[in-house]
């Protein structure tokens, strides 16, 4: 069966999988909570119900597990969709969402805030600002060449900006207090969903919904752009506009993810490949399936992290550690299917 015929089946499978994983994820964690209690706690927010559970449990379910699960879904989906968008735009399967320097910029911003022992909210804000500043700078560097619209120059701008912010980050690491600040910087750079709260979900959700909606509107034009800019233009695509839309929306998806949970590599580059192998290159299908696979994948990885007692392993490390063998197996299987 070819990718386009398979698409509705795949979407149904992954939507059901994601819904199932969403509910099952509430059962995982340090406090064992019975499924019925979880359902009752959730229902008690809607219906009037006498609580028969401890108030700690309610807090665990609604203020610890709920935001963490939702963030895993949003971050995994956003990074994967941003990766799919950039890969299609740059006609390059090796591209990841931080191609324009978002991660390096956000890393520098967060570390800068940590150096001043700032609050969690301020760290996020600095990460966001750093990420956006890096992409802005990449765009500016590309503009200096007078060929701002040239995608190769833009990638070059991103590479240059990334290395600049990585150097600045190293400077901060050197200055940081080795007992408290340096470890927290290091852990932030490896990514974690542990500090996410409901506030973060409320901030992230609208940004993700808006970006995804806009990208979806432009899906056919993004496909045409992957045939090359000249051809796209001759097919009637407003090339500068579509490029800007993809860059802004994908940057937004990446920067909100990174500023909330640190740097999580691997997902944004590899998940689109899995989705493409399953459903083909067409951007509308590719991006929606990438979102679902990325969301499900990150949720499962985070559940494994939460399920291991005693330690909290960094998310960015676990994605690659578990993802690589999964990807290798999938590649081998999918190849047979073709």
């Amino acid at each position, binding site marked *: 069966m*070819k*990718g*386009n015929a398979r698409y509705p089946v795949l979407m149904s499978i992954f939507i059901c999988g994601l819904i199932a994983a969403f509910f099952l994820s509430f059962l995982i964690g340090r406090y064992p909570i019975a499924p019925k209690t979880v359902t009752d706690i959730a229902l008690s927010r809607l219906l009037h119900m006498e609580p028969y559970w401890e108030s700690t449990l309610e807090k665990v379910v609604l203020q610890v597990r709920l935001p963490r699960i939702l963030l895993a879904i949003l971050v995994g989906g956003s990074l994967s969709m941003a990766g799919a968008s950039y*890969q*299609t735009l740059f*006609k*390059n*399967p090796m591209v990841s969402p931080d191609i324009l320097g978002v991660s390096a910029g956000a890393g520098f911003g967060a570390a800068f805030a940590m150096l001043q022992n700032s609050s969690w909210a301020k760290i996020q804000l600095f990460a966001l600002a750093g990420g956006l500043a890096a992409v802005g700078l990449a765009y500016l560097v590309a503009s200096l060449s007078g060929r701002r619209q040239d995608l190769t120059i833009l990638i070059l701008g991103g590479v240059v900006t990334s290395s600049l912010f990585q150097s600045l980050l190293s400077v901060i690491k050197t200055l940081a207090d080795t007992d408290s600040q340096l470890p927290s910087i290091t852990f932030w750079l490896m990514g974690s969903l542990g500090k996410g709260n409901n506030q973060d979900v409320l901030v992230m959700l609208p940004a993700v919904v808006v970006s995804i909606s806009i990208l*979806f*509107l*432009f899906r*056919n*034009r993004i*496909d*045409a752009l*992957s*045939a*090359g800019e*000249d*051809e796209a*233009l*001759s*097919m*009637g*695509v*407003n*090339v500068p506009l579509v490029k800007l839309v993809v860059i802004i929306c994908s940057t937004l998806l990446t920067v909100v993810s990174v500023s909330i949970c640190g740097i999580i590599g691997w997902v944004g580059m590899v998940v689109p490949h899995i989705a*493409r192998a399953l459903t*083909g*290159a*067409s951007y*509308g299908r590719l991006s929606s399936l990438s979102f679902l696979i990325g969301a499900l994948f990150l949720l499962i990885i985070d559940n494994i992290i939460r399920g291991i007692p005693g330690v909290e392993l960094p998310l960015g490390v676990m994605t690659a550690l578990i993802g690589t063998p999964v990807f290798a197996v999938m590649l081998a299987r999918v190849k047979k299917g073709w």
Partner: protein
Amino acid sequence: MIEAKHVQFCYHNDAPVLKDVSFTLEKGESLCVLGPNGTGKTTLFRCVINLHKLQGGKVLIDGKNSASLRAEARARLIAYVPQASALTFPYTVRETVLMGRIAHQKLGASPSHKDKLAAEAAMERLDVLHMAQCRFHELSGGERQLVLVARALAQQAEYLVLDEPTSSLDYANQIRILQVIKHLASDGYAILMTSHLPDQTFLAATRVLMLKDGLVFACGAPEATVTSQNLSALYGLDVCVTEAQATFAAGAYKSKVCIPSMP
């Protein structure tokens, strides 16, 4: 009608590529541009479809200035078939041809029934419908070229610009593409193409434009323009254009052929 009037273009200020090129192209015609490498054939095409900003002169498509048209409006008038298209990702032939429908689609809309019909008709016409589900990047060069022409037809523009449509194709595929071009012209499309083989002008062109050193060297019907004298001067090589006759099952057939001097 396409009217190119005194088109001027240069990549570097000191070396103009097109100094003063004018031509017209009407529906039902196929105009083949001949000229040595680097004379600006591709550049001229890119100027016509506004991928380059002209430095002088103008290009009118149905009386409208090509440069001031919006991309969508221009794409509904004029379609472009590149020498080769490199799709990195595994798009199917159907998806590739449907890309040609973008100028007819509103932002956010999925391909409509009409879009799908237009794409199918275009694929049918070029005999690539049976490979609609194949991946474009897995096709042979000749098949790809046919699909790219189908994409241009799906665009439903009446002016088609084909940049070296037969380069990198084997002999049979070259003839196939030329047949397609000839039929399209007789169906009322206006074809603007380039070729490195002057023989092809006798097979598929109604008019020939010879470009040399950024100027129009000669222009007119193939029989009158593609002569021994003109070709020899154009390419700096002794060429003899002579008439030949061939007899096939379908009947006798006369055409001119070019024979280069090979001492």
